[in-house]
């Protein structure tokens, strides 16, 4: 079969070792910090030690998240309590005149939206994509907020499936400050902890509203996905 044929060719190709000169070129560099151990640990460490630093404390993380969010045009709102998160969402509803809101079966999301007088679409169970397309906003939870990149890490479990966070023109994420982690590697570790070997079929780092610069490098938000991304973090 093709599998064996291809793997056979790969094995045969690899029976000759890589030219040491070519391999050497990669190692040598006058500008680099001491090279970390090869392999996975070295690389996870590299993310902390070589990529941009965002400090250790929650305050530093929030500050870094804020700076990048401004650049990305993500609306990042830090509120002191669940009550104020509910108010923030109510204000957003008024401002953007939401009528149809997509949500999912998620404790924090449900607590934050149950006061809204709008039509709801629940995407935690089989739903109609055309109905989702007509929603003004999708409100979801997340697995983590990543300080180093100002991303919301979601899976289809934490975000009501694959489409809720990308099909409506506005995506709102509600999160708790305890979900803030330093790097993307920390984010993966959280999902690993939560799901073990039974990975969700969809994981995504959402970093700002959808964008394109394909026409003359001019930045346009909302290419295909949401034009607006709001992240509400409760820091009680």
């Amino acid at each position, binding site marked *: *079969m*093709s*599998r064996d044929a*291809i793997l056979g*060719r*790969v094995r*045969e*190709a*690899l029976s000759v070792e*890589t030219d040491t000169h070519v391999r050497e*070129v*990669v190692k040598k*560099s006058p*500008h*680099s*910090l001491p*090279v970390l151990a090869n392999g996975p640990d070295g690389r996870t460490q590299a*993310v902390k*030690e*070589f*990529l941009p*630093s965002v400090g250790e404390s929650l305050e530093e993380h929030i500050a870094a998240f804020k700076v990048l969010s401004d650049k990305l045009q993500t609306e990042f709102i830090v509120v002191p309590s669940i009550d104020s998160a509910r108010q923030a969402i109510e204000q957003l509803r008024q401002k953007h005149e939401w009528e149809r809101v997509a949500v999912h079966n998620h404790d924090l999301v449900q607590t934050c939206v149950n006061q809204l007088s709008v039509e709801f679409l629940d995407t935690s169970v*089989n739903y109609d*994509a055309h109905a989702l397309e007509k929603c003004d906003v999708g409100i979801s939870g997340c697995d983590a907020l990543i300080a180093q*990149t100002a991303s919301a890490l979601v899976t*289809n*479990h934490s975000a009501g*499936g*694959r*489409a809720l966070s*990308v099909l409506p023109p506005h995506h709102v994420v509600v999160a708790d400050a305890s979900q803030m982690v330093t*790097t*993307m*590697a920390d984010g*993966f*570790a959280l999902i690993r902890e939560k799901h073990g070997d039974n*990975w*969700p*079929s*969809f*994981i*995504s*780092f*959402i*970093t*700002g*509203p*959808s*964008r*394109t*610069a*394909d*026409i*003359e*490098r*001019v930045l346009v938000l*909302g*290419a*295909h*996905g949401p034009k607006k991304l709001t992240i509400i973090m409760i820091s009680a």
Partner: protein
Amino acid sequence: MSQSTNPTTQFQTDANRVTADVDRRSFLRSSLRGYQKTRTATQERFLSYESARIAAGDAKWEAIENLDVYLAQFADKLESRGATVHWCSDSEEARSAILEIIKKHDAKSVIKSKCMTTEEIHLNELLEKEGFEVVESDLGEFIVQLRDEAPYHFVFPAMHLKKEEINTLFQEKLKSINTDDPEELTMVAREVLRQKYLSADIGISGANFGVAETGMISITENEGNARLTTALPKVHIALMGIEKIIPRLEDLALMLPMLATAGTGQHLTCYNSQLGGPRQDDESDGPLEMHVVLLDNHRTRLLADPEQRDALRCIRCGACLNVCPIFKNVGGHTYGTTYQGPIGSVITPHLRGLKDWKHLSHSSSLCGACSETCPVKIDLHHHLLRNRRDAAGKGQGGLAEKVLMLGFTIVMRRPWLYRLTGRLGKIGHVLTKPIHGTRIDPFYAWKKTRDLDDPAKQSFKQYWKSRK
């Protein structure tokens, strides 16, 4: 693009034409200057970008040097999650595997998110011939598809077009309003494509990485089109080259920022999604079937080269194109390849044959800007030299080159003859001065694009003697 059969002639013709278009070249340059500025700023935020490059390069070395193990692990994991893996030796096999899936589902329309590998196997031509509607959803790809053109740059497919040209195109093909505002143009495309996502039966995507440990593909994008392509249609087909593997999930935490920084200058691209299988039992949406089509198409031939397998570590960020003086002057279409620029020049001779594509090894000034910018430290400019060496070694240089090299060897081995030639050369230069730049100059063709300075009064040898 001229449709010449011989790639070398086509390159030369197109290069001449494009380099003469000063306006377009300066347009290209100014856009690449913008890229450079953003990228520099992002890179400067790193604690050590140089070390991060080494670590990222290391991850890809580990993957490539153990590709047999990781590929098998990747496929097994994916299958255990309910996906189907298709192993395809060449374009033909990949095309028929994909066609079979589409036919089996009685599909009518196909939506695609950006995937260079589908360009490599000419998938769109086939599907359109078979009567399917195929829509490219990435904005840049959508534009070049409407123009019936190949992507100009594998990261910025429509970078050569001005907004006025896109306006004309949209008015003509989409009957859209008259506007050359990039935002309004983008919204025109958004509206057209929205409906396509909802109605398409099949979504086809590429993959930027294949995670061996967990059996997931990872897709990087800014627009959200790949997310929609892999969320709404009931079947998802992902086509990926076998070299896209990385060992572990956590490696993405390093590779994704590196790809973004080098590729567009962003610290991270808007959506970085990992997909491992179709919709699972406890999930409410997503495709019912996921097919991953693994493509060899002579990648194993490149892998068998102990020097140049290095190039399989490429993460297709496109940075080497952006800094390449040749790319800036001849543009993307001139290459006539799926992958343009330095990386394209290195790998195309391996993927499509050295004989027809060796001229690409000369489309380099050997300045080394590509190797210096590559986020995984591929030794690009030396590989171009190695390709030249290999072409020469196989006697593919042609008769003129052979005669020239023979003459060179004879002269260089005989000091008296070398001295004599030097003197004759000087005399010849002075004597032919009146005809320089005219057509009767025997070196007209060579001098047409070059200035030949007067030789120095004193040769190096004379200088060396006199200084003692």
